[in-house]
């Protein structure tokens, strides 16, 4: 039997929730959502007759950043990449491209059109990620606005309104209306330590009333902000029927519906015109001779004042020696490559777990979402597909590529399915959001990062607990961030904010700066402690 909660009890509960919300807010101000600044390492130009040499392992964003900056300073730079392409997880697929999943290789069959691409990894650049934006500018990568939140998208939960999808605007309007009503009631009864004066009280009540579109008696009676059932232009608009708070509370998607415009996913976000890998291509334009592909590193050995790397290519073995090694090979793969790293360094590499993110996409035969007033943004569902993304580019063209599933935290559900099962699941679940979805989409592709060749994982997972790094984790992190001899581990894996390209860039900057400060201090005997 359900326990009935009185209005006063409910207010008490809300007050408690509010308190933890305030704590979270303070957390953000203290740097949970980091702000970065552009501080490109100032590398003194190398003497042309005595150029330092650097071997960089991995041509993802961190490796390319390191290569680009050090080449500019006149260093002799070589980048060794295991895959047949650069970019790492910054992967965009188009017509004819290979998705190199171990055991499930796919070729993308999307139409061959510039706007028909899918960003399999990073797909949005927050405006606070200034280093990514800096390189876009410097490398001539054209940007456009990415639409992350759009109130015309859907919220769908099997537990809410018999699974019927409702527009985010309906959800948000009703949720805010009821919340404002509760705030108004709570405020008039509250005993405040320092009561507001009459003017302040009126001002606050106006804010609350406006926030929830309340009636004069501070009751939420529905609002046209949620959309019209009919009319609106030539006739008076009639509001949609109000949805009860009780019904809205049945979904766990509240924060998805209301909170997407805050924090790192809040406006404004960007995307490169033509796909995220335009950034990769921008770097490669500056590194035309430096990157070598299909190269499998088999050993990384620290030496006195340098690093020796052995690799295989087409059945032949090669050895390369350099003054420095910047290594972005995922730590969980590096543990399987012969090395002579210190034990604590290896222990740290072994500790990091690999991410399980999963994404999939369809080519849509027609841009059916546009007939539903949707232009960009994300629909949210409680089903394993979690999200449907609508392309923020190619408006009113005939076709588009639609993201049909994005599971960042626990992608193993899809990863363990066969390709056919993955596609069928995306169709079946997408149908709950868009009727007739099955007939409107085709040529599905799936990206299970846990099984992508040469990566076997999405972003590094350091923390075992949500409450932050433990002391032990902090120790391991600091161990792995420090150089081992002249070897640096780089990549978003060695940051506190994994998964973002900004982090990958900053990891490379950090390593370069550390290298420079050691050089400036001269090379000291013994090991840094």
């Amino acid at each position, binding site marked *: 039997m359900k326990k009935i909660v009185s209005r006063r009890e409910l207010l008490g509960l809300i007050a408690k929730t509010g308190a933890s919300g305030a704590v979270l807010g303070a957390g953000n101000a203290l740097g949970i959502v980091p702000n970065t600044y552009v501080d490109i390492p100032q590398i003194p130009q190398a003497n042309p007759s005595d150029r330092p040499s650097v071997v960089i392992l991995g041509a993802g964003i961190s490796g390319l950043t390191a290569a680009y900056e050090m080449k500019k300073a006149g260093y*002799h730079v070589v980048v060794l990449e295991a895959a047949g392409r650069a970019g790492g997880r910054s992967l965009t697929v188009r017509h004819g491209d290979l998705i190199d999943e171990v055991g499930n290789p796919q070729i993308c069959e999307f139409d061959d059109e510039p706007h028909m691409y899918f960003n399999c990894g990073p797909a949005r650049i927050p405006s606070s990620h200034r280093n990514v934006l800096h390189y876009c500018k410097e490398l001539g990568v054209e940007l456009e606005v990415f639409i992350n939140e759009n109130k015309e998208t859907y919220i769908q939960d099997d537990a809410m309104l018999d699974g019927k999808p409702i527009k985010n605007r309906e959800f948000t309007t009703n949720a805010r209306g009821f919340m404002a009503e509760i705030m108004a009631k709570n405020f008039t009864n509250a005993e405040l330590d320092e009561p507001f004066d009459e003017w302040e009280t009126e001002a606050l009540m106006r804010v609350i009333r406006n926030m929830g579109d309340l009636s004069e008696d501070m009751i939420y009676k529905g609002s046209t902000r949620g959309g019209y059932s009919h009319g609106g232009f030539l006739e008076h608009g009639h509001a949609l029927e109000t949805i009860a708070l009780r019904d809205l509370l049945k979904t766990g998607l509240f924060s998805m519906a209301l909170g997407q415009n805050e924090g790192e996913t809040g406006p404004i976000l960007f995307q490169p015109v033509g796909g995220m890998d335009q950034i990769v291509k921008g770097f490669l334009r500056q590194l035309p001779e430096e*990157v070598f592909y299909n190269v499998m590193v088999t050993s990384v050995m620290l030496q006195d004042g340098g690093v020796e790397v052995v690799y295989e290519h087409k059945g*032949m073995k090669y050895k390369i*020696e350099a003054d420095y090694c910047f290594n972005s090979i995922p*730590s969980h793969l590096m543990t399987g490559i012969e090395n002579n790293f210190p034990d604590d360094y290896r222990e740290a590499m072994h500790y990091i777990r690999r991410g399980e993110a999963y994404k999939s996409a369809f080519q849509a035969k027609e841009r059916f979402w546009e007939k539903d007033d949707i232009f960009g943004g994300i629909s949210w569902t409680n089903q394993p597909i979690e999200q449907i993304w609508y392309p923020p580019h190619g408006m009113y063209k005939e076709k588009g590529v639609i993201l049909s599933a994005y599971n960042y935290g626990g992608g193993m559900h899809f990863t363990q399915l066969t390709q056919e099962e993955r596609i069928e699941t995306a169709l079946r679940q997408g149908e709950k959001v868009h009727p007739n979805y099955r007939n409107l989409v085709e040529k599905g592709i799936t990206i299970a990062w846990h099984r992508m060749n040469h990566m076997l*994982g999405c972003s590094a997972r350091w923390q075992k607990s949500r409450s932050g790094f433990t002391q032990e984790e902090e120790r391991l992190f600091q161990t792995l961030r420090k150089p081992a001899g002249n070897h640096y581990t780089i990549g978003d894996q060695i940051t506190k904010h994994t998964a973002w390209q900004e982090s990958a860039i900053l990891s490379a900057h950090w390593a370069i700066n550390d290298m420079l400060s050691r050089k400036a201090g001269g090379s000291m005997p013994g090991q840094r402690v």
Partner: protein
Amino acid sequence: MKKFAKSRFNFLSLALLALSASANAQQYDLLDLSAQPLNNEVCATCHGGAGVGNASVGGPSLAGLEPWYLRKQLENFRAGIRGTQKEYIPGNEMQASVARLSDEEISELVDHISNWEAVAPKPRIEGDASKGQALYAACAACHGASGDGNEALGAPGLAGRNDWYMFRQLKLFQSGFRGKHPEDTAGQLMRPAAQALENDEAINDVLAYINTL
């Protein structure tokens, strides 16, 4: 320590310079996946450079495995006799990796991997080898006193294998995730043998002994 000023780039082979031309031209014909070469690069992603094994992703060492055992396990994975239990993710990954291989491809892989030089893995497990020696007497019946295996009994060599991998496999045999399939006759023999090890300590002890073989 060496001065940083001196450049140390030193290619053993100039063939490297020839790579860059082909590097950017990674084109695949639409739907012609057979155009991809079958190579050890796929194996090495999980099983480590030169097949030395990688505990972080659960890929055991392959270098030094007997060809008959390698073939049998590849066939078992392909047929879904091993690796179909969703609870054990590395097995799952292996199953998907080989599900499409032809007989010829399996033969090629076995030939190829058999040529890899065996590397003695670093011990990761701590146990009491002297206690383990007593426990190993039961194992020796099939796997041999010196742990070099017995093809007739379907028992692979144990010496030189990753101890962490053998630990996991013993646990899988114990719980029935391995060795329960009716077509896995050798696995069925192994299951009760694994169950005879009473606890993790006993497993660690016997592995500590195997590490000395």
